[in-house]
């Protein structure tokens, strides 16, 4: 859909407004919501994956080296990953300007 929500006419709608594009919610830039962001000291990381399990946005992914890191397009800075990390890898810092 190239039209925004405000532009859609009733004829544009699918039957019962069924959304046929799977995973379309990922387009929302929830990263804009955060006031804190996670920072990492990967030296301490044991790659347990607990932060990945607990992230409510499911926005943590494993990079090429196997470390778990948040995708900042979606991360809304809740800090749960920092709380759950057993080795203190993650520190939440105030979002810059």
């Amino acid at each position, binding site marked *: 859909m190239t039209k925004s*929500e405000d532009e*859609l*006419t009733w004829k*544009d*709608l699918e*039957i019962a*407004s069924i959304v046929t594009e799977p995973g379309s919610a990922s387009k929302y830039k929830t990263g804009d919501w955060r006031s804190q962001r996670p920072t990492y000291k990967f030296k301490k990381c044991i790659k347990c994956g607990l932060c990945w399990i607990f992230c409510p946005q499911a926005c943590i992914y494993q990079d090429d080296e196997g470390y778990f890191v948040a995708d900042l397009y979606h991360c809304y800075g809740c800090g749960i990953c920092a709380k759950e990390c057993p080795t203190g890898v993650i520190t939440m810092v105030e979002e810059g300007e």
Partner: protein
Amino acid sequence: MPSKIGMEVSVAIGEAVRLANADVIAAYPITPQTHIVEHLAELVADGKLDAEFMPVESEHSAMSACLGSAAVGARTFTATAGQGLELMHEVLYIASSMRLPIVMTVVNRALSAPLSVWGDHSDAMAVRDTGWIQIFAENGQEVVDNVLCAFRIAEDRRVLLPVMVHLDGFHLSHMIEPILLPEQGEVDQFLPPNQYPLPLDPNKPVTMGDFGPPAIYTETKWAQEVNLRQAKEVILQVWNEFGDTFGRHYTPVECYRCEDCRVLLLTMGSFSETAMSAIDKMRSEGNDVGLIRLRLWRPFPFDEIRQAVRNAEVLIVLDRALSFGGPGGPVCSEIKSALYQSGRKLKIVGFVGGLGGRDISIAGFEEIINRGIEISEVGSPHEFEIFGVRE
């Protein structure tokens, strides 16, 4: 060539659902619908109907289960009555706005309090706005035929809306009458398999029942309204095809001896049959009266109603439900609204009667018509007339 068999209408409904080869039946028992679901449970248990019978814990759950079933493309059926219909109220709106083809027979029963298991239309009138296609049946054969048509209408690609077939509690549901059940082959020809265009399918994921913020809600509702109105065309086509195939023709509004009549009575449901006898009697006595029977309730047949009353001077409407503190009978108020728009000047007199299983005899109908004519001449201080109340 099938012949008529004497059977209870509720059982005949079960047979119709069997002939339609429904896939899922999710229902909760409530008088006077029980014989329908009991018979269906037996058919499934005996292996005569290959379907999933879900004995759910309430009518709210029944309709919720039907939503899920219809969403995956299964041919879905349920039945309820009175309080049961009210219990599933919120889910009814969801079924229609999610465009899910579900067929439900509603055995019209009066709403409590006081507790009544007997028939009237209060349950049906309470769900007027739910967006379902609604058809009223007058006798057992009509119920059977319209259950078959309902599946065809609901599942049509141009419709995709749930359908209610209303039948009067006890007076229809528990009546043994001659029923002609079509042959399986004929039904298979008439009813193609259900092919919901966008079902829930892990291979082709979709999202159903999403949020509708203010920016988009109006558009979704207008789309739904246009769709329900346009469904009428499909309903007429299906009824025509049914008539050509099985020999019994149905129309949204039926005129009984009403051509060029000065005075018309309008009824819905099984009372129409008794009313026809009253009309016969009054006409044989020289009275210029006729009967209009309303069969298609939603989408409301504006054109057919306006056409049916075009030559009349007095229209008497009998409601079997009462809208408290309002204009009285719901059907009468809708008829008035429909005719107001058309600018037709017609004296309309509303009666409310037959509540909670109260019978109206042939003599009773004569009284209603005569009183209606009287009121059309001298007027009345009341919004409507209550019939048969002991004072």
